[in-house]
Every structure is written in C-alpha cells, then in structure tokens.
C-alpha cells in the first residue's frame, strides 16, 4: 500500500492529469484540490523540512502553500507549470520562515535535515531483501546527494528545476544524480551476487 502511494506521486502520473486538476481547482472543485494535496503533501513537506529543519514549521509551510493555491485559484490559468509552482512556492515560503524565525540559519544543503529512508514492517512485507538494501544504501548517501536524487527520481523534477530550486548549477545536479546511481548500482551488483535466495 505504501509503495503504490509512492508511485502515485510526481513523475509516474501523467502530466495531463495535473492540468485537469488545475482546471477543476480553478472551477472550485474541492475534490480536485484534495487530490492535488494528497499527491504533493509529502514531497513538499520533505523539501520544507530540508530547508527549515523543524517539523512543525515545515507542516505549517505546506499548509500555507495549499491555502495560497486555493485562495488564489482564480489566477491558476496563468500558471504554466503547477507542479513547479508548488515546489517554488514551498521553497520561497520556507526561506521566508528561515529569515523570520531561524535568525542565522540559511540553506546549506550539506547540513540539511532529510527524511531517513528506513524500513517499516508494512513495507517489508511487500518488498524483498533487495529493495530493503537499496533503501538502506540510499539512506547512506550524503544528504545533498540524497535530496537531489530524490527530487529527480521520486518527485520527477527536471534537472533545471532542481538546480533553480536549490540554487545550484545543473552540472552539480547531473554529477550528484550520477554519483548516487553509481553508488547504488555498485551496492546492488554486490547484493545480486551475494544475497542468498535472490535470483
């Protein structure tokens, strides 16, 4: 159940889907708004957490983003890329929080607090050893590398978008995704040959 939920967010859902949602929300459809919320709540919360390092604040930021989307729904036709808009708004609001409340804390990705990728019993039931080990390997990546890899792979953001979001160069995004893949593939190559019972 967890896995199917993860798959439903971001990249794997067709892009026209979000256009339809955008249209319906513009027309005041609360159900569509809830669908949008369900899809982006978790990835946006993770982004906010990575910036403000505070759970309560991060949750408030996500609430603010969605409240703003709903209140400003009349402007939605002018938004050409709603998904990017959500990420950019989360980043902007989170940075405002940092400026207002956290005094001197700024966005240093290498000290960013990121969600841990660990295993819960439910996921363990439906995933095999291999998936488990890959997720452990992912949780062992350096924080910046992990955040970039997650934004590209799981959230389906474009390289350009990740670069703009984190204020880094596209080259850095390319390199970090490359490094993550290389490390994870090494890990998997070892697992495939050493794990008992895995074909």
């Amino acid at each position: 159940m967890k896995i199917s939920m993860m798959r439903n967010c971001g990249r794997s859902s067709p892009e026209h889907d979000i256009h339809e949602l955008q249209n319906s929300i513009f027309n005041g459809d609360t159900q569509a708004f809830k669908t949008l919320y369900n899809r982006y709540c978790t990835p946006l919360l993770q982004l906010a957490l990575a910036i403000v390092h505070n759970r309560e604040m991060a949750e408030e930021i996500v609430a603010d983003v969605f409240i703003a989307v709903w209140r400003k729904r009349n402007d939605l036709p002018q938004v050409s890329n709603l998904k990017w808009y959500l990420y950019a708004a989360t980043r902007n609001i989170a940075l405002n929080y940092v400026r207002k409340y956290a005094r001197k804390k700024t966005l240093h990705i290498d000290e960013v607090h990121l969600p841990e990728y660990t295993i819960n019993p439910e996921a363990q039931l439906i995933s095999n050893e291999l998936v488990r080990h890959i997720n452990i390997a992912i949780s062992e990546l350096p924080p910046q590398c992990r955040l970039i890899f997650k934004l590209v792979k799981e959230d389906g953001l474009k390289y350009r978008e990740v670069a703009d979001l984190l204020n880094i160069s596209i080259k850095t995004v390319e390199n970090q995704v490359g490094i993550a893949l290389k490390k994870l593939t090494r890990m998997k190559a070892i697992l495939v040959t050493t794990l008992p019972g895995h074909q």
Partner: protein
Amino acid sequence: MSKDRIWILLGKQLSGDIAAAEQAELEALLKEDPEAAASGELAASIWQTPLQDVNAADGHQERIWETLSPQLQQRRHTPIVRRLVTAAAAAAVLAATWAGWILLRPTAPVLQQLSSAPGGKSKVALPDGSIVWLNRNTRLYYEKNGFGKQHREITLNGEAFFDIARSEGVPFIIHAGEVNIRVLGTAFNVKAYAGDSAVFTTLVRGKIAVSFQEKTVVMRPEEKLTVPLSGQAGAFEQAHPQKDSSGQLPETSWLNNKLAFDNNSFGELAAMMSQWYGVTFHFESAALQQLRFSGIIDTESIDEALKMLQLSRPFRYRISGEAVYISN
C-alpha cells in the same frame, strides 16, 4: 572520466531529461563498454525501486489537512505573526503566478523565463499586453527590467504563437537562434526548437520582418517563411500554406491541440512526435524513415497514433518507457 560520464548520462536518460545528442553519446559509450551496459540495466532497476520514506506513515498528511481545511472557507482570525507569514506566502505565490513562473535571480539583469508544462501547452500574457501561446517543450526568456517600456525583446526556444499588442515606438523583437523577427502589432507563429534545422515563421495577420545574417524579408499575411540555419543567408524559402477545411493554417493547428503533417517523411514525423509526446524514436533502418505520411494527430495517445499510421504503411513498433522502436 568517461566512466563517470556514463553515470551522469544514465541518470539523465532514466529521468527522461536527456537531449538527443546526450542520448547518442550514451549509446556510443555503452556500446564500447559491455560491463557498463550491464550496470545500465542495474541502474534502470534501481530507478524502478520506490524510495520508502519513513515519514510517509506518521500521519502528517491528515494533520496538515486538518490545519488547512478550515481556512479554505472563511477568512481566518489569526495572530499577527501568522498573518505576516501568510502575506509573505501570498507575495511569493503572486510572484510565481504572474504569467508562469519567475526565475529568481538576485542580481540584475533579471532574466524572466516562461515555459510550457512538460507535454502541455500554455497561454501567457506578457507585461506589454501581448499574448503568447507556448507549444510543448517551449521556453521564452526576456529581460524583465524595462520590458514593454524600453524594449520588447524576447528569446524563443521552441514553438509559439504570438498575438502582439501594438506599442508605438517599441518594436517587438523575437530572437530565435540567429534569426531575428521584428514585429509591429500582429499575430504569427514561430517554430524554432533547438534541434530544428530551420526556423519556420507563419504570419496570420499584420506585418513582420524576419532577418538572418545580412538578409531581411518582410512577410505578408498567410505567408510561411523557412530560414535554413545551415545554408547561407540567401536561402530563404517563401510559401503560401493551404488552409484546412476549418480555415486554419496547418502551422497553427497545434493551438487546437493537433499535430498536422502533410506528406512528411517518417523521420520528420518522428521529430514532431518526439516533441509532441516527449519520447525518442529509434529506427531499425534508414529506409523506414523515408516512409511518407499525411494526417493529423489530435488527442490520440502515442499508441493510438502509431496504430493509425500503421493503417497506411506497414511497420512494427514497440514502446518501452519513453523510447519508441520502429522496425520492419
């Protein structure tokens, strides 16, 4: 060095964010290194593995919803600090709302970028009142400072239909690669994707001047001008496209969400469909690329479109993710 390059390119390929040249580079690298090719398959399976986020199960989704849902209906009464934050939020949202999104650059000059949603089209209003429809995978850039007053210059990468507001004394100039288009109040279409070999301009009404290197051509309504980027400046090609039964020029049919092709080779069609669907085509043989098709793709999925094409010419196809393989 080239080892790391493979990983960078694999990442771009798996994310679907890879340029044609990079794809070719990757295929060449994989061909010369069988071990890397095997790693490529492992990497693909890793890409399919969902990240299991421990936070997903902590109930935050319900918790945040409870916070925000009461605020969707009525104006809230909240302490000042909270309201300040909301004001900041609204400001951020407004900034991002206007005509797409703003590329925030802390230093001058301020480059504004407008882009269509991946796989979708967008209609945007420029600050001077001009309206632009962006086709898929299209980006517009302009210098925000003084736009509409001191200048109206934009850079186009992709395809767009322009309905330009009149503005005495401030010409609207579009830079499409090395081709410049100068406008005074009019409506026209420009196709100038980065991979295209030429810039195609189709004028619907009004008057525009297109220049490339030394040469300038003034266009009349319902004319289409092709400026090849490889040849010399003299090689402009002027044509009068036929309107279809609805009275529309084929060059602007994408506005109605249609992909029109008229006796185009499969190779050309593949380039159009790549942009339309965000896929890459791989042909088994060059002869297949020479097959010719005419038709219009409207709201068909890529699978339906290929089935439709199969009705007129025999070929086989296989769709694998974002790659389409065409064979005999």
